[in-house]
């Protein structure tokens, strides 16, 4: 993920605002009602896009962690942390939207029998533990190292747990791209793609915002020190 010099932040924010508005418009006015679930199925566009975005954030966190360990990139630690933080925020949203959807379509907020849900919970717990780890080490090179290593573990865990779930049961939780393969098209696809792009853009904006704030913090502290 990027250097601060790429797209100016205000422009980026404007773009993601436009995208999110478009996505909302598409979701509510363009996409057709689902045959079985009716209107409530529209939460799908957000739920799935948010989930994918969360994964993207975690991947970004791991990539920056790798850069930190491998290239000793001095800013990679902060970037990695911000990525994981965004991932956790979007992860919370996945749990929320998923739960709402589950309540609507299954009548339960949570189902232990759905392994994929529990799997996501495991990942969620994993990244909560990342935070615990990070905040129980004093700032410094060691904290950066430990966080980076644990973030790397995360990307190994994701495919491994997918394999574990696949092994444990045939997937009950719907997998759009295989299950609905043929009839997943037209406006549904377009709407989904727009929503996905919008959320990725939103996540990136938030990421840049947080990163900027954190960097400013660091700079201010340095400045104060020089003055003192």
């Amino acid at each position, binding site marked *: 993920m990027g250097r601060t010099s790429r797209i100016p932040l205000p422009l980026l924010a404007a773009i993601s605002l436009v995208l999110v508005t478009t996505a909302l418009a598409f979701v509510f006015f363009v996409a057709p009602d689902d045959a079985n679930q009716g209107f409530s199925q529209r939460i799908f566009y957000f739920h799935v896009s948010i989930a994918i975005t969360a994964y993207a954030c975690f991947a970004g966190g791991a990539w920056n962690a790798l850069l930190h360990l491998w290239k000793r990139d001095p800013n990679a630690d902060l970037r990695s942390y911000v990525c994981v933080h965004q991932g956790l925020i979007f992860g919370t949203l996945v749990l929320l939207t998923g739960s709402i959807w589950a309540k609507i379509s299954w009548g339960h907020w949570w189902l232990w029998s759905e392994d994929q849900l529990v799997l996501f919970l495991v990942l969620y717990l994993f990244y909560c533990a990342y935070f615990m780890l990070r905040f129980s080490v004093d700032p410094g090179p060691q904290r950066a190292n430990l966080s980076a290593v644990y973030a790397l573990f995360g990307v190994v865990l994701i495919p491994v747990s997918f394999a574990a779930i696949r092994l444990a049961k045939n997937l009950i939780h719907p997998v759009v791209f295989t299950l609905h393969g043929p009839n997943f098209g037209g406006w549904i696809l377009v709407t989904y793609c727009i929503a996905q792009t919008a959320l990725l853009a939103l996540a990136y904006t938030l990421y840049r915002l947080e990163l900027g704030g954190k960097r400013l913090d660091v700079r201010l502290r340095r400045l104060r*020190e020089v003055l003192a």
Partner: protein
Amino acid sequence: MLTARRLGKRYGEKRVLRRIDLVLPRGGFLVVTGPNGAGKTTLLRICAGLAQPTEGTIEREATRAQVGYLGHDPLVYRELTALENLELYGRLYRLPERRERVGMVLERFGLWEARHERVASYSRGMTQRLALCRVLLHDPELLVLDEPYSALDEAGAELLDAQLAELRGERTFLLATHDPARVEPLASAALALAS
């Protein structure tokens, strides 16, 4: 042997070392002094490779096997005997004449008789002697010694004097102390850290 440029170290907000420049040639003997909390230990740990500076660079012309570091902690296992501890380090440093060298350093620092006792039952001075044994066991090129005289009795201090005098010139020394007079005759350079 050691070249540090504009070295700095901070712990979070707190700046401990600031712009240290240091050139220690092979065979040199640098004495570091400074009040409590000045950053001597921090500097020595960086020089030994145990910590990284947050600013500046450090170059060391010695592999890890060629560094001997004596810190504030003796770095030995209290539940093991002196012999077992030195055996462990001897193996880890892959010494060719391990057993012989272990016996030699134990004898040199007057711990031969106590070699089969657990370190937990050692007195403080005996533990410090054992830590010195550990450092000298693999005959390092670069010796980084943080207050090596602490806890030693007069006999022990003289043993150490003799040891330092013997190696002076052949090995490179970086030594922190609160009693610079003691190592004055050996020193080739001095660095005084301010608090």
